[in-house]
């Protein structure tokens, strides 16, 4: 598995912004991943596993957030995280499917 660094800028499209549930989902993905994931907004860097930090970043709809991942599967973890900023949670898709 490739050891790597990946970076992506996402726009929050969930109309409610990054809310409690999003933050929990982000932290879950980040914790499961073997890469170290960091979120950056307005030059503030927070660990993607820290829910209080994610929430107090206050990412509202329409705002940009940068995601950095360093380590194993860096690119994959970004792929998993991106839909969350659009308010798309895996469990709902399963239900509707």
């Amino acid at each position, binding site marked *: 598995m490739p050891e790597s660094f990946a970076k992506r800028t996402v726009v929050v499209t969930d109309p409610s912004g990054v809310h409690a549930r999003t933050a929990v989902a982000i*932290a879950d993905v980040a914790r499961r991943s073997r890469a170290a994931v960091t979120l950056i907004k307005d030059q503030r860097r927070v*660990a993607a596993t820290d*829910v209080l*930090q994610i929430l107090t970043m206050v990412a509202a709809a329409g705002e940009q957030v940068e995601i950095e991942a360093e380590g194993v599967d860096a690119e994959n973890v970004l792929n998993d995280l991106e839909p969350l900023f659009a308010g798309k949670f895996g469990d709902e898709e399963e239900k509707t499917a």
Partner: protein
Amino acid sequence: MQQLQGIAVSPGVAIGEALVMDNEGFRIPRRFVARDAVVDELERLDKAIAAAAAEIAHHRETVSAELGEKYGAIFEAHLQMLQDSRLRSELEEMIRQRHYSPEYAVSRILRRYAQVFQRLESSYLAERANDIFDIEKRLLRHLLGRRREGIAHLTSPVLVLAHNLTPSETSNLDRRFVRGFVTEVGGPGSHTAIVAEALEIPAVVGTGPFLTEVSGGELVIIDGDKGLVILQPDEETLARYRHEAEELRIQATKLEPLRDLPAETRDGVRIELFGNIEFPYEVDHCVDRGADGVGLYRTEFLYLGAEVEPTEEVHFQAYSRVLQAMGQKPVVVRTFDLGADKMPNMPHPEDERNPCLGLRSIRLALRNLPLFRTQLRAALRSTALGNVQIMFPLVCTLLELRQAKMVLADVMEDLAEHNVPFNRNVPVGMMVETPAAVMMLDRFVDEVDFLSLGTNDLIQYTLAVDRSNKDVVGLYNPADPAVLRLIAMSMEAADRKQVPISMCGQMSGSPLYTMLLLGMGLRRFSVTPSAIPEVKNICRNVTLADCKAVAERVLTMENARDIRSYLKEEVKKYVREINE
């Protein structure tokens, strides 16, 4: 340093450590821990986090099982917010590096996070601050354990800062250690204002939100004269206020010898100085100041904060305590002056948009006779123990007065029938606190034994000003010529029939108005006990001729501002020697 402006409701200056209470009466504790206790304190923090986490996890399980995963999710978020690694390291740093107590660190840091949300425009996001406050409370509850009781158990002097103080909180506060109050909400008639006055400690209310910016143990100054609250004052401000507090103390000491001297003018006219009280223990303040009696015993506290309507015995015990202390000096018991909203077990009035003009006071009493009769029975029974007088509040019409007196007569018959001792000739009077009562006073005087001018309400109803409304409070002014004319009319009407008249509003306790009121003919002042020495001092330094000249001049003047500045000059002329 941060300065807040609120409404001054109880005078004086207090400097001290803040005791911050949240909406649940929860106490945010002191600031520092001993250097060698840091490791133990960190362990205590981790235990508290673990316990709080276990509690939240349990909630999540229960709620998910009962209401579904979606509802449990908010607890999952709380849980993860609590276990945030940056939060933990920030807390540790505060405890290790700055020797803050875990409680202080938790409250300080979580409030800082909450502020991030509170500053936002969107009310939806601002609501999230509540999630953080919730976590703060939970952690504090575990950290404080049994020490979390509000203001009931104190060990050192504190200034209490709260959103609001409820009667149940203040009823069991430790009076030895509370030195001042600040509340975010409330007006001049609020419960906090009344309790502060009773305790004779400075208080400022209605400052607006600020509690998230202070933590327990911080230094605070309360300026109860100007309505200012200063958080973390700088050296210079602190020095200035220390000096002022010292001056006030010296001034009070200088007036102490007046205690045993009569309130007599220089030309030998004896003035009566009575005390206003709310709580029975305040009678001691009256005795300490050499009061000639209790001119206004408010009985509202018996109802406020009570779970059930007070029984006749509860009333009787309270009255007895006051009468015992006052001996044969008069005690004027005023029947309850409350709206239905403050009464235990009474449904809230449905369409009361304007409580000041609504169903309250004597109106409420006449519609709830059993309630009224209970109080009257206790008051009548207490007439056997001392010099009790009974007074009805907010009387507007002759009919109301007659109805109230009929109820009283009826209760008397009932007591007589059961051979319960009481004084059948108990003096019965009324408050004069509406323009309607003043206009009809020439008729009222034929049906009462005494009168008492309640200036707080009289000013409010005359000038159409709500004193707790910041935008119009500036219009509330005892020196307004319209108010003074109503007072002059009342004095004349009372004088014509030789009916004793007193004044029990805040105006009568303000030394600024003493000369004017004496000049207008007032001979009986009923004031908050702490104001007795100052008012007495003025009485003893003036002649009635001086005062009449002042009153005549004032009654020709056209606006409150001129009147106030004129009165200030006059008072200075006569009592200069004491103030210097």
